[in-house]
Each structure stands twice: as structure tokens, then as C-alpha cells.
């Protein structure tokens, strides 16, 4: 990654280690002049991944645009916890319209700015996974297809958390939600085909698509910043653990996100014009059980008996991701893991994954 001159883990910790960096390489959050786009006082739960991800992403966009930005928010946790009026945590120009239309509203803002000759002001649309992969999908695809000048950010916590943890199209297999309860012969969410919005975004061949997590906040800042180098439609998909819905400890939000990437379940990559341009290698590969065990939404996979066949299917999905996105380059996979190197699979035609 272009910003990284120092490997932070060499400091002996996973801290961002800003003091080791030159001023111009320090993170947005370490600067006194950070915008605090989403400032303190909001009502997110303890350990909320979405609040963390949104602040880092928007502050990075704010810096990249010298503050010339407008945000459009879908209905959801982020909208509700930030603005029970008259309190608002938004220090930026911010509009909430509906659940399913944030990408189209953002397109409208961008069109207005263009019509008024204010293309110096950039537009961010944002929502949770429900507002993005389910009810907002048509508007999102329309915005992509027209290549409107909008960065859309999806904060993916893998269910409808705001309304009490119901299943969304982004809920992973076997996960317990209020509508896929841990009862019956096959407890938890069914194994479907999934709905991988980053790949769907890439299929539109928009300029920039990236995934990130709150486990690597410098990578998140970099991608939000990088997205602003492009004009036209862009998509950033950020995995944001939800302690309430996932049944993980609030103190473990970063850890859970890191295990999602290090198990291979959540591939971190970036793509330009439909082709993957980089993926973040897994540093310490872990079996998916490390990730699953610390979340109560998967408790039924381990008690009263370990459902090895279900876990094996989840592990197979992680292995496919690792092979598909090149998350374990050959030179490090043998050295770092006791697990066998995944067999590379051929990318489906047309997804442009061959160019990685």
C-alpha cells in the first residue's frame, strides 16, 4: 500500500505508531485539525464498529476534499444514533431522506452541484448493509451505472441491527439473527449464495471499489482518501462489527474484525475499473473457529455439540476467498501457517479478478 513505509508490527504492537512517521504520513485521526465529522455525544452502543468506521472514513474524505463535502445517509443505526434532534453529531452538511434511496439522493446532490458549478464539493452516500445490499440495491446500481460522482460507503454489520438484529442479504450463513434463530435442525441463517456487493460494484466497472475493516484503520483512511482521487461512482465496503448483534464483547470489536480478515472470511482488497489491483495479505492466518467462537451469534455451532460439518462449510468459504483474492501469497503461506495452502481457483469470467 502506497502510504506504508514502516511495517507497524515491527514496533512490537499493533498500534498505529504515528510517532515513527513523518508528519505527512501520519493518520488523519492523529492530526489536531481532524474534522470530527461524526463528533462525540452520539448514542451508538459501546464498541460500535459503525461509529468508528464512519468517523475514520468521513474524516479522511473531509481532509481529502478540504472540507468541501456533503453526506447523504440512509435510514439505519448510523442515522438514528447520530441525530435524535435537536442533538446532532454531524459537523458536516448532512441529509437523511429514506432507507432505500440514499444512492439516488446522493446522485441528486451531485447533479445539483454540477448544475450550480460547484463540482469542488464532493458527495458521499452512506448506509448500513440493509440499506445497501437489500432495499437500496436498485438505487445503488443505478448510481453506479450512470457513473454519478458519488462515493458510496456501506458499513456492513451483517444484519438489520437498528431494528433488533434481523437477517439481511449480507448476513453470513449459520449466523443467528432475530429472523434466523438458533433453533431447529439447521439453526441460524441458511447457506445461500450471498450477495457480494463489492463484486457487484466491480461488475459495473466503476472507477474504484475497495473493502476495508475497522481492524486496519490506516488502510480504511487510505481507501477513503484514495476514493476521492477518482471522479464518478465509487464504492467502499467496510466491515463494522456490531457487539449487540454479533454477541461479541464491546472491547473485542477490533479483534473480531481482524479475525474476519485473518481467517479469510472478509477479503480486503481494492479494484479499479472492474479489476482487482491489490489485496491485503493475511499476516497470521487463523482457522474460522477463532472468529466464530467469540461471537454469540455462532454459539449454536459449538454447543451443545460442535457442528463440524457447518464449520467446514464456513472454512471452505474462507479458503475460497483466500485463493480467489490472493490473500496468502505463496512465499508467506507456508511459513506462517500450519494450514495447507489453499488451491487457487479460477476466477469467474468477466469479474476481472485475473489482473490481481
Amino acid at each position, binding site marked *: 500500500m502506497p502510504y506504508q513505509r514502516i511495517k507497524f508490527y515491527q514496533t512490537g504492537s499493533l498500534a498505529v505508531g504515528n510517532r515513527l512517521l513523518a508528519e505527512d504520513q501520519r493518520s488523519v485521526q492523529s492530526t489536531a485539525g481532524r474534522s470530527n465529522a461524526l463528533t462525540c455525544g452520539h448514542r451508538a452502543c459501546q464498541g460500535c464498529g459503525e461509529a468508528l468506521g464512519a468517523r475514520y472514513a468521513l474524516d479522511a474524505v473531509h481532509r481529502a476534499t478540504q*472540507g*468541501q*463535502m*456533503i453526506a*447523504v*445517509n440512509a435510514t439505519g443505526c448510523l*442515522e*438514528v444514533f447520530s*441525530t*435524535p*434532534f435537536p442533538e*446532532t453529531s*454531524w*459537523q*458536516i*452538511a*448532512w*441529509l*437523511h*431522506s*429514506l432507507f*432505500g*434511496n440514499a444512492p*439516488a*439522493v*446522493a*446522485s*441528486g*446532490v*451531485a*447533479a*445539483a*452541484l*454540477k*448544475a*450550480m458549478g460547484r463540482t469542488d*464539493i464532493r458527495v458521499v452516500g452512506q448506509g448500513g448493509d440493509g440499506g445497501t445490499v437489500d432495499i437500496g440495491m*436498485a*438505487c445503488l*446500481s*443505478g448510481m453506479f*451505472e*450512470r457513473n*454519478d460522482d458519488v462515493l458510496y460507503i456501506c458499513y456492513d454489520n451483517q444484519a438489520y441491527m437498528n431494528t433488533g438484529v434481523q437477517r439481511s442479504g449480507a448476513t453470513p450463513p449459520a449466523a443467528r439473527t432475530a429472523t434466523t434463530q438458533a433453533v431447529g435442525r439447521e439453526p441460524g441463517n441458511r447457506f445461500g449464495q450471498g450477495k457480494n456487493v463489492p463484486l457487484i460494484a466491480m461488475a459495473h466497472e466503476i472507477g474504484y471499489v475497495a473493502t476495508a475493516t475497522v481492524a486496519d484503520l490506516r488502510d480504511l483512511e487510505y481507501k477513503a482518501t484514495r476514493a476521492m482521487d477518482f471522479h464518478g461512482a465509487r464504492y467502499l465496503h467496510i466491515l463494522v462489527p456490531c457487539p449487540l448483534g454479533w454477541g461479541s464483547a464491546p472491547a473485542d470489536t477490533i479483534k473480531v474484525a481482524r479475525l474476519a480478515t485473518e481467517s479469510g472470511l472478509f477479503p480486503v482488497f481494492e479494484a479499479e475499473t472492474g479489476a482487482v489491483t491489490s489485496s491485503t495479505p493475511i499476516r497470521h492466518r487463523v482457522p474460522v473457529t477463532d472468529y466464530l467462537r467469540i461471537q454469540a451469534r455462532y454459539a449454536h455451532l459449538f454447543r451443545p455439540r460442535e457442528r463440524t460439518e457447518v464449520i467446514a462449510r464456513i472454512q471452505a468459504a474462507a479458503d475460497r476467498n483466500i485463493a480467489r483474492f490472493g490473500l496468502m501469497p505463496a512465499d508467506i503461506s507456508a511459513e506462517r501457517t500450519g494450514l495447507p495452502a489453499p488451491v487457487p481457483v479460477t476466477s469467474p469470467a468477466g469479474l476481472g479478478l485475473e489482473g490481481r
Partner: protein
Amino acid sequence: MLKQVEGSRAVAEAVAMCRPQVICAYPITPQTHIVEALSAMVKDETLNAEFLNVESEFAAMSVAIGASAAGARAYTATASQGLLYMSEAVWNAAGLGLPIVMTVANRAIGAPINIWNDHSDAMSQRDAGWLQLYAETNQEALDLHVQAFRIAEELSVPVMVCMDGFLLTHASERVDVPAQTQVDAFLPRYEPRQVLDPAEPVSIGAMVGPEAFTEVRYLAYQRMRQALDVIGATAAGFAGQFGRPSGGLVRPYRTGDAEIVVAALGSVLGTVKDTVDELRADGHKIGVLGINTYRPFPADAVREALGGARHVVVLERALAPGSGGIVTADIRAALDPQARRISTVIAGLGGRAVTRKSLRGLLAQAGELPPLTFLDLDTGLVDRELARMRAARRSGPSPENMLRDLGITASRIG
């Protein structure tokens, strides 16, 4: 300048002269030629605006919401299913107080699917918080758009200009198209009351709980009350500047000594007036009340215009199943029901022509009208389908049965 043009073209030219900055539209379910003409004007740069072809009416209204909130003058058009598909965003635009102008080319709502004219679409959104202005002619449709932007922006409320699908949108009539300088003089530059501006950031669309929701809604009610004055003043100003009356709240016709008054909205008023002229010639004391503004409902103006009429016949172009006439309910609420008789006539649904002959037959015998009548109802057709339904549980889909019964495969309007 006088022109012989299609209604949609006339409206497109009027909208273009209002200098919208963002225009968005979805083509089907269904659209009119209005946005097609506007798209060409943007493409050949005779109109300096952004034109967005979106993937649904829901997106069309959403784009208009974003554009308006960012400070641009925003316009879209729709009809029928399209209006219902965007309904959530229609209500949202009103709640946010965004002065969007939208043409609704009134058409029926399915099922059964039907592309023809009635008022079911706009009536379904009557409580969305939008102003609803109904055009009687293509000239009025053109004029109402020029007025609509001014009214919307003065009040920060969205305005729906309703014009009958096909009967107006696809009909070529003579219209007087104003000069750009006239429109510029009438319609000031848009100064938003609230705007997304990084220099002065605000949060728009925040959650409001029980502590203030009623008060926010009360403001919407008050703005609608205020709109009654603004609509009247705008129509008066328009008449002064353009030299012709257009719009306003209500338009009475030969109501002076009328004992019976027919109230209606939209292009059917022309036929009603012709019929009333015939009945007047025969000695009937009958008049017409055109309701130009349906939302806000001009209760005082309606009451005043009805004068001493003892019988009001409300000609409805839509039906509220389980209730009856939609406009009737508003008129009844505006009057003392003890003092006047009110009859509802459901007419012209799904494009059925409202003819002078039928109206004349009905109104000549107005004294015998029951509370609710369906004009030109084919009772034989209905009775035969009811008999089929009684005869067999699985009698099949009624619309298809009735068409088979009629033995026709193509639409017959008259």
C-alpha cells in the same frame, strides 16, 4: 406566442422557461412526452440543466430530493403506477419541505392494468403534503407550471401539477407560450430556506420523536393554510402579468342563481360546462364549480362559490372503495350537510369518455340522483359476472371474464 402543440410539449416548454437545474425521470409506468422533450433541450444545450435518466420513479423523486436539498430547482414528471412507486419519496419530499415541482399526467391505477385517464393516481397521494393543482386545459397546464415553481419556492412545499393523461397530455391545442423574459420577470431566482452547504453545515432529515412530531406536522398544516393565500395571490399576479386568468382556488361558472352545482376537477370541466349550457337553455338552474386547487382544499372558497345552491353533484374521476367519492368527502366537510344535498357521480374511470349525452341525461334528472351513482355503468355486464361467481367457486379472474363476455379484445374508450 400562439402555437398549436401537444399538451406535453407545451408543458415541457413552460418547464424549460422556469430554468430547472436538475430534471430526472423514469420513462415507463408511464411517462409522457414532457421529459422526452426536456431531455432533448438539455442534450442540445438550449436548456442548461442536468438531466438524469434513473432506474425507477422512486429514484426519480429521490434524485429530486437530493437536488432540491442541495439548492437546485428540481423537476420531474410521472403518472399512474409510477406515482405510487415513488410514494414513499413523495411523502418524504413534503416532510423535508423541498419545493420540487412534479407533473402528474393523471391515469388509472391497476389492477386491472389500464393506461387511460382518471384521477386515481393523484388522489392516492392527496394527503402526502404536496399542493395539488388541476389543469382544465393545456393552456392552464402550461400556466400552472410557471405558477407552481413560484408557489413551491415561496412556501418551501412541493407542488404537483395534475393534468389529465391523454385528454390533455396527448391532445394538440392552441396555447399561448409566454416569452422567456415574461417568465423570468414572474419567477424569481430560487433562494432555498434550507440548503446543504459545507460552509454552513446543517443536518437535514433528523429523527423527531413524540416531543415535537405533532408540532412539525402542525407547521405543515399551517403552511397549507398559508398556501391558500399564496395560490390566490400568485394566480392574481399571473393574470396581471400574462393577461389571462389561470389557476387559483376555484372557478365558478354560471353559479349565480344556480340551484344545482356540478363540482369537478380537470379537463372534464369543459364537457360539464357545455352540458350545463344546454341545460340552462332548457331552463334548468344549474352551474359548475371547477376546483383548481384540491390540496390544500379551499373549503371557504368552495362554500362561497356554491352560494345558495341546494344540491351539489360531485363528479369524481376516482373511487374510494369502501367509502365512495373522494372529493365528495372534502366538499361535505366544507358545507353544512343539513342545508344542502350532496350526490356523488363516479365517472370516466380508466379512460371511459364522459360524454355530454350521458351527463345531460343524468343532470336533467338530478333530483332523482341517489347518494352515489356510477355514470354509464353496464349493469348487465356486472350482473352476469356476479352470476358466474355465484355459480362456481373457481369462477376465475373477473376482469378477464368480463372482457370475454363483451367479446372485445381491444380497448374501447367511448
